[in-house]
């Protein structure tokens, strides 16, 4: 490449991971139609996730949950100027190909949809569009990164409005990262085996103390305080699914979670935005769930 030429490189790890860097400190909101997408953008969302049903409805309705209708994704792309993400089923590379052809900005290979492959995830390296994948622990995160994921989100338990699983997954990931940093070189081989993670990535994160891609948090965030909690635990941005549009006043809840995400270390601001918000989504106790979405993915 020489300066001034048209020559340029698309789909590099740097530009794919780079978009995730741009979303840090922000809120990515699940939306099911252009009206909700507009509300999300108005409230200061950094991106929207276009899907047909929010996780709590998927949970309620049952059946097979698939990629959204392209028409709906296009309508949302035409409505907002911020990045538009969409979900593909785990292992369903054909859905991912379709989403890339629709020019979505990020693909979420998501356990919220019904998995299409119970062994293999999508080989994400050949795609120009970047992928985000969920993880419940460090080994899972590193396996997804080795397959080409450019952003990891802790899974939590989507559609519950209960932050407990998100906290569990973040704490697990950071605790395992700290363990690697204190390990002897000789111990890293056995730790890689325990984590079921590629050795090269284990060595890399042991040296840097951080994932090579941004770590966001998803699954169960439904109040400004939840956002502040997971950011203080180390998440770099939040995905909010059912938590906004299943609350009493979605517009205010969306704005409040955005502000709490920016000012997560300032309890006075989080208190201010939490005041008089109306009811958050009802939520569910995770021990009563029939289906744990976080267990999907391998």
């Amino acid at each position, binding site marked *: 490449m020489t*300066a001034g030429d048209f020559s340029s490189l698309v789909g590099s790890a740097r*530009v794919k991971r*780079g978009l995730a860097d741009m979303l840090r400190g*922000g809120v990515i909101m699940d939306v099911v139609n252009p009206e909700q997408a507009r509300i999300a953008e108005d409230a200061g*969302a950094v991106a929207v996730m276009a899907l047909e049903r929010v996780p709590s409805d998927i949970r309620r309705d049952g059946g097979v949950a698939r990629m959204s209708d392209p028409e709906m994704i296009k309508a949302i792309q035409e409505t907002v100027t*911020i*990045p538009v993400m969409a979900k593909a089923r785990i292992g369903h590379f054909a859905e991912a190909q379709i989403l890339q052809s629709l020019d979505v900005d990020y693909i979420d290979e998501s356990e919220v949809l019904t998995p299409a492959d119970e062994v293999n995830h999508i080989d994400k390296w050949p795609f120009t569009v970047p992928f985000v994948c969920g993880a419940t622990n460090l080994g899972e995160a590193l396996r997804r990164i080795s397959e080409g994921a450019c952003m990891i989100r802790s899974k939590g338990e989507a559609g519950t409005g209960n932050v407990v699983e998100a906290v569990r997954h973040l704490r697990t990931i950071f605790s395992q990262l700290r363990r690697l940093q204190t390990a002897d070189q000789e111990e890293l081989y056995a730790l890689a085996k325990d984590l079921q993670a590629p050795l090269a990535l284990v060595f890399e994160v042991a040296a840097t103390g951080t994932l090579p891609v941004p770590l966001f948090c998803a699954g169960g965030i439904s109040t400004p305080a939840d956002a502040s909690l997971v950011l203080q635990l180390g998440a770099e941005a939040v995905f909010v699914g059912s938590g906004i549009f299943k609350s009493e006043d979605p517009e205010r809840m969306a704005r409040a979670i955005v502000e709490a995400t*920016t000012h997560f270390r300032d309890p006075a601001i989080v208190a201010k935005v939490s005041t008089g918000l109306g009811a958050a989504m009802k939520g569910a106790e995770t021990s009563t769930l029939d289906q744990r979405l976080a267990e999907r993915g391998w």
Partner: protein
Amino acid sequence: MPVVGVLALQGDVREHCAALEKIGVEVREVRVPAALEGVDGLIFPGGESTAIAHLLNTSGLREGLASSIGDGLPVFGTCAGLILLSSKILDGRDDQWSFSALDVTVRRNGYGRQIASFETVVDINDLGEFPGVFIRAPKIESIGQTVSVLATHDHGDGEHPVLVRQANLWGCSFHPELTIDTRLHEAFVASL
């Protein structure tokens, strides 16, 4: 030693802070108006311009920043930061505002959506070749007479400015902070 603030409402704040720390300046993250006190220069990072614009309003930073910029506070805007400084925005939201300080017209996502994001090499006046990382980048469509063009890039539709300067205000379409090259941060700091 100058104190350089990084607007830390949203975006790749960490990379800018790391670049500034590497070149040995005192760095301050700016989220509230009080943090602007005593800052010699400010960086508007990459991120989502609509989200940052929204948070500038809710944080109460907008008014104070507008007057500081008017009084000559040096600001370097990268990508979304360039959009926030610009005098005119194309393809933005209907109600999208900016500080209208840097006399350029920018087109949001002018180089395309994410799958069109690219890396190239840009040739910067006085600095030479520099890694250019363009992510859903704004395209500078036109500039005012007082704006100097420090680098251009031809993406198949003719040369467009990608790095500009107008007195104390600097803006670029790409992300120097996503590379290990700190020369642009050094040049900005040297100008303070």
